[in-house]
């Protein structure tokens, strides 16, 4: 099978790109696919921290591009999940450290030994974000149900369809997937959060999954464990569902409505929240 490059992108910062890259990549590996997660956020690397391997970073992506280390030296094998590796970003402040040819070379080499290459994009539409998506076959657009996030997602979709290698070479378009994160069904019912239908209607790209707002996400990042490894949690289950859908399985969407409460729960819950 030919390896697939997946970019996790959003335009806006803080919507859950790194959380998603870590959880999605780990879930891919848990389901038996050889996966590498590559951090493209040069200068502000955080994937290593979310994955809990920050103390094992010796060489990074830039070192490999510059020929200061080979790929095997820079790849960090996850100790918990078989077939999962991480390639950290550099902490250099040199913005031009990444170049198109160098990234292309590294990705080409990674294609040989992995089934999936998950590229964790930095926020914005600058160089790092551009290079993270340039070689992608598929894109996961991480969006929060909030106006600025939806607008930025739309901008990123525009960039994907015009500036990627696939667009330049006139090949098939990058396959786009919407991943709605930090979704709170209670607030949607109350009418103070954009609903899934609203966001889908506005962005009109296929839905990969909805990740509910969950305490498990912060707990997972505190511990350095990707949230998809917490199969008890709602967010963990939602990420595993999303990966199954990505692999073509039909999985019903969950966590889209409020948990059933009694009359008292509803009355008191509302009062508390209002």
């Amino acid at each position, binding site marked *: 099978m030919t390896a697939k490059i997946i970019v996790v992108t959003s335009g806006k910062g803080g919507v859950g790109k790194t959380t998603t890259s870590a959880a999605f990549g780990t879930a891919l590996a848990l389901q038996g696919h050889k996966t590498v997660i590559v951090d493209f956020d040069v200068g502000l690397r955080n994937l290593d921290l979310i994955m809990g391997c920050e103390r094992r970073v010796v060489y990074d992506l830039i070192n490999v591009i510059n020929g200061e280390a080979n790929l095997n030296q820079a790849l960090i094998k996850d100790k918990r999940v078989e077939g999962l590796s991480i390639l950290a970003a550099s902490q250099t402040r040199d913005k031009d450290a990444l170049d198109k040819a160098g990234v292309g070379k590294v990705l080409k080499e990674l294609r040989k030994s992995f089934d999936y290459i998950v590229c964790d994009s930095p926020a914005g539409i600058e160089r790092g974000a551009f290079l993270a998506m340039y070689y992608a076959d598929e894109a996961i657009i991480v969006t929060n149900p909030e*106006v600025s996030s939806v607008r930025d997602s739309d901008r990123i979709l*525009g960039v994907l369809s015009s500036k990627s290698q696939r667009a330049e070479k006139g090949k098939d378009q990058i396959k786009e997937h919407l991943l709605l994160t930090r979704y709170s069904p209670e607030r949607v019912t109350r009418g103070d*959060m954009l609903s899934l239908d609203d966001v889908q209607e506005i962005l009109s790209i296929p839905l990969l999954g909805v990740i509910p707002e969950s305490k498990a996400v912060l707990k997972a990042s505190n511990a350095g464990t990707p949230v998809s490894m917490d199969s008890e949690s709602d967010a963990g289950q939602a990420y595993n569902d999303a990966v199954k859908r990505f692999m073509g399985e039909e999985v019903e969407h969950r966590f889209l409505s409020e948990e059933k409460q009694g009359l008292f729960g509803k009355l008191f819950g509302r009062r508390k929240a209002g």
Partner: protein
Amino acid sequence: MKWLTSLFAPKTQDQSANVAKERLQVIFAHERARANSPDYLPKMQKEITEVICKYVKINSDQVAVEFEQKGDRSVLELNITLPEEVEKAASKSKQTKAKTAKKTAAK
């Protein structure tokens, strides 16, 4: 029991999510149209304004250039608002509308 909770729920028009959706729809209609317009449009608009300014005293905001895509046809709409004095002198309509259509090859 639904009727009971609906008593406490805010009315539709008060819901901020609806406001958010409407705002997004308005801004997207604008931004998507701009994203599809050719790169030379702002420069051309500037030059057209300069040419008109040679003959008539107008501000740049009195020239509106709209670019619209309809199937394989692109429509460029120029809308110039001429000042009052010119109108009296020419005793013609206040607005001059020029529409040009050109065919663009479908991608």
